[in-house]
């Protein structure tokens, strides 16, 4: 049969493997717990301190994002400014009191209802959470 030329016996290799598994298991506790706890805050795409963005009545764009905010009757509202036709970025034209899509000319009312096609669906609202003096926003399912 085979001559024993190896440095380690089978038993030693298995015990080494067990120790390696233990180290791997303990070592993965921190990353896995960070990953599992990372749900709400980290998934928010935008986080803007409320003091930086004093809200008045009209829609206003939030930093370099596609979120537009306004102070509604029941708290802060957010609009996800993507055209529901093909996803171009729409912007609110305060003079016309309408949302305008630059690509195919869709128009929406100030509440996001489609006025002129090709878009047929209303603009999508995003959920806003106010936490620790900041607005947290998540990209809505579109």
């Amino acid at each position, binding site marked *: *049969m*085979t001559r024993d030329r190896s440095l380690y016996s*089978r038993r030693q290799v298995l015990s080494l493997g067990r120790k390696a598994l233990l180290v791997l298991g303990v070592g993965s506790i921190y*990353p*896995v717990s*960070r*990953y*599992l706890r*990372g*749900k709400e805050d*980290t*998934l928010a*795409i935008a986080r803007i301190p409320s003091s930086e963005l004093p809200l008045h009545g009209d829609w206003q764009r939030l930093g370099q994002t596609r979120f537009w905010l306004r102070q509604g009757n029941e708290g802060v509202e957010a609009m996800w400014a993507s055209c529901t036709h093909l996803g171009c970025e729409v912007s609110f034209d305060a003079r016309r009191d309408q949302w305008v899509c630059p690509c195919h000319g869709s128009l929406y009312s100030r509440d996001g209802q489609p006025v002129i096609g090709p878009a047929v669906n209303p603009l999508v609202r995003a959920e806003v959470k106010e936490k620790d003096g900041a607005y947290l926003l998540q*990209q809505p*399912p579109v």
Partner: protein
Amino acid sequence: MGKTGNDSFMGHIRPSQIRAGALRLRATFCLGGFSFLAFIVLAITGVLLLFYYQPGDRAFASLSELDSALPYGGLIRSLHFWAGQLMVITVFLHMVRVVWSGAYRPLKELNWVTGVVLFLLTVMLDYSGYLLRGGQESGSAATVGQALFTALPGGKALATVFFGRPSPLNGSTLSMFVWHVFILAGAVSFLQMFHFWRIRRGGGVRPL
């Protein structure tokens, strides 16, 4: 090979006696072992991905968030991807080794058939995982796969069961998700246990 002490469950996992030659690396190159290791990594990272993945229209968006916003999300997703690639390769090489050393011959023919089924399941898992990414490439792959299915007799019904109704822009559907996560993965883990048990029943590994 002595059967003493090998009949219990633990006895199969850690038998008191095995062939000395089977321990040599050259006997197996440990390819089945690597495949199983990849499967364990896939199972663990797969469960972790389930916490955030959303099948269907949100597939691509949820994975982008996982990559960019979640701590260690990209690492876990990459581990799942690379372990999947590794598993397909090692399972294939494992089959080549078995053919090379003639280990499909009697006493082991049932295990060879089981292994072939496991290989097919592995490829289907890899394919369905590719669709679940929900990118444009997934939509194209789904279109090709559906067309292949419909070439079979009764293939249209089969394709509907397997794919659901994927849009050509996004291959991810709930049906594909159920197949990937529960049915295919479950079948693989069950058949693997049988496969390992049959190794000992078939007389273990002989050196090349």
